[in-house]
């Protein structure tokens, strides 16, 4: 049914298609806006389709390799190169495939949404170009098996995100947010480059599997590990390096904010990939695991407590994003902390990791949904200030429904997807350390409280006179939100199937370093 050409070349095609579309978009936009919308929507749809095909292939048949520029995969490791892959290899294992699914679904929903939400702005050609480049960056980051290639895609993602965060330049505040984000991410990226240099100097390899196979955890490796995990933790917004997050999230256009969430998850993916696939048991799992757990707990607590007094709805949601990132760090950190001990890992470690990884996909969906609803509200009433809102439930019924779905999901209320992943985290973390589970639950309650406040302020109450003629959000925006809401509800209703088919393979792929290495290097 699907041509084998596409399946075989899907890792390359999923990068090629958005790139080619991005290169042409600036000129398509000069013809007419309708054609541009069609072009961008079509390109994104094709990208999503290819990505989903690849992900499906990976889930059904196992890890996929794609060697750039060599006739045969064996040519990537010629006999006299000392067993080192000399070419860039895309290595898509189930964990990568999970991120690919997230990106494809979110990206498609968000592009549908932004086709109408940004209609009245200038510079839309650049907007869509950067959007497609951002998608490319995320896709490349999560599927590459080469650490320098990871850095390059990280930079593409950073530049595109920074440009898009500053999209609404007229107030200047958005530019300030973009500036802060970009300075930090540049410094972080340079730290990663230093780490890459250290790996290169020690092992003379750039392929992650090769570095992992040779990893010795010498002092230099420890320095490199710290440089990478600090930079990536900063880029995914862990407290106390989260300061850019509320700025950037609140100032970017809403559709971009929803994608920035996915971008943060991609950084999180990089963090997990480094810790699990690059180092795995060689590192002092307890220390690093506890460091990640502490970062996670801090993120959860500080994020949610900072969210409660916020007046700006997007800023509030951004702090919640920080808080939810904490759950993922907590879940995976617990998995890491018991990495060396197989019995503990089987008892609750896998469960915690599955919870954390499941939370990644859930968070991308519901937080994206929430940001999109915030954008829809902003489109109609022109403010993010909670104090000036009220009574919108009368006129924006669908938006309200979607908001309720998202809010209940983030608060972990059954039957939405947040509940399933949070339940898994609570259960497993409780076995590991009861205090952490209690903290997680309290944070969840505070999240609910905070969203009750938001819901009340935006939608409840009588119809306010200044918003008398507010209409429902336009159809494409509802469609975009609808896709995400559908995913939220489906994942919430059938978590078992999702966990079994998507999450468990991902968690095992992450933990099983041997499989990751042997996928590239063969045998061994």
């Amino acid at each position, binding site marked *: 049914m699907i041509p084998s050409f596409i399946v075989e070349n899907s890792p390359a095609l999923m990068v090629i298609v958005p790139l080619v579309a991005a290169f042409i978009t600036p000129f398509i936009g000069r013809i007419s806006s309708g054609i541009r919308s069609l072009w961008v929507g079509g390109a994104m749809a094709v990208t999503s389709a290819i990505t989903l095909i690849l992900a499906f292939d990976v889930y059904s048949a196992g890890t996929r390799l794609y060697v750039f*520029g060599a006739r045969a995969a064996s040519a990537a490791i010629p006999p006299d190169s000392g067993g080192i892959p000399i070419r860039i290899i895309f290595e898509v294992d189930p964990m990568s495939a999970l991120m690919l699914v997230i990106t494809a679904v979110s990206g498609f929903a968000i592009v549908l949404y932004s086709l109408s939400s940004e209609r009245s*702005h200038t510079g839309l050609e650049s907007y869509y170009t950067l959007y497609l*480049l951002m998608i*490319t960056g995320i896709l490349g980051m999560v599927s590459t098996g080469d650490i320098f290639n990871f850095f390059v895609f990280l930079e593409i993602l950073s530049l595109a995100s920074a440009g898009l965060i500053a999209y609404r330049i007229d107030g200047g505040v958005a530019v300030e947010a973009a500036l802060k984000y970009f300075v930090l991410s540049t410094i972080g990226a340079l730290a990663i480059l230093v780490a890459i240099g250290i790996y290169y100097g*020690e092992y003379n390899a750039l392929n992650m599997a090769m570095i992992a196979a040779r990893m010795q955890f010498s002092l*230099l490796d420890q320095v490199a590990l710290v440089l990478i995990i600090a930079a990536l933790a900063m880029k995914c917004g862990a407290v106390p390096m989260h300061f850019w997050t509320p700025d950037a999230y609140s100032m970017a256009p809403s559709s971009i904010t929803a994608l920035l969430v996915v971008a943060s998850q991609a950084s999180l993916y990089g963090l997990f990939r480094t810790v699990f696939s690059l180092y795995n048991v060689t590192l002092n799992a307890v220390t690093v695991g506890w460091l990640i757990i502490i970062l996670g707990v801090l993120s959860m607590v500080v994020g949610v407590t900072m969210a409660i007094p916020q007046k700006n709805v997007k800023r509030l949601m951004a702090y919640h994003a920080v808080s939810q990132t904490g759950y993922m760090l907590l879940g995976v950190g617990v998995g890491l902390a018991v990495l060396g001990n197989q019995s503990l890992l089987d008892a609750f470690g896998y469960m915690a990791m599955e919870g954390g990884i499941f939370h990644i996909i859930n968070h991308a969906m519901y937080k994206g949904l929430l940001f999109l609803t915030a954008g829809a509200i902003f489109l109609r009433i022109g403010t993010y200030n909670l104090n000036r809102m009220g009574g919108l439930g009368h006129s924006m019924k669908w938006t309200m429904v979607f908001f309720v779905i998202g809010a209940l999901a983030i608060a972990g209320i059954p039957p939405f997807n947040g509940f399933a992943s949070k339940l898994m985290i609570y259960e497993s973390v409780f076995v590991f350390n009861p205090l952490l589970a209690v903290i997680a639950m309290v944070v969840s309650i505070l999240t609910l409280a905070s969203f009750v406040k938001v819901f009340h302020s935006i939608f409840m109450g009588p119809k306010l006179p200044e918003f008398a003629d507010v209409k429902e959000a336009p159809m494409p925006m509802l469609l975009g939100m609808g896709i995400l809401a559908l995913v939220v509800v489906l994942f919430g209703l059938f978590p078992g199937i999702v966990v079994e088919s998507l999450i468990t393979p991902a968690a095992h792929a992450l933990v099983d370093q041997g499989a990751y290495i042997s996928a590239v290097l063969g045998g061994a």
Partner: protein
Amino acid sequence: MRKILTTIIFVVLATGLCAIPAFLAFGEPAASEMDQYFIGHGQSEAAANNIVTSIVFDYRGFDTLGESVVLFTAVVGVGLMFRSMKGGKEQ
């Protein structure tokens, strides 16, 4: 307080970075199988005399694509910053 902390941070970072000159020898790369392969086979495989170019465009051509895309991204971003706002007024 802040000054003390900053100083401590810098001292720690400098000490950490000093691991680089302490453990990596300049002028004598320890392992270089991959580069030996490039030097030995690059000329015949890519048919280019300049090994660096054959790495940049052949062995690691995908990186170079990414790098060009970074430049493109920067251009688009700068264009976004200096766009003319004559059309629809921003909200």
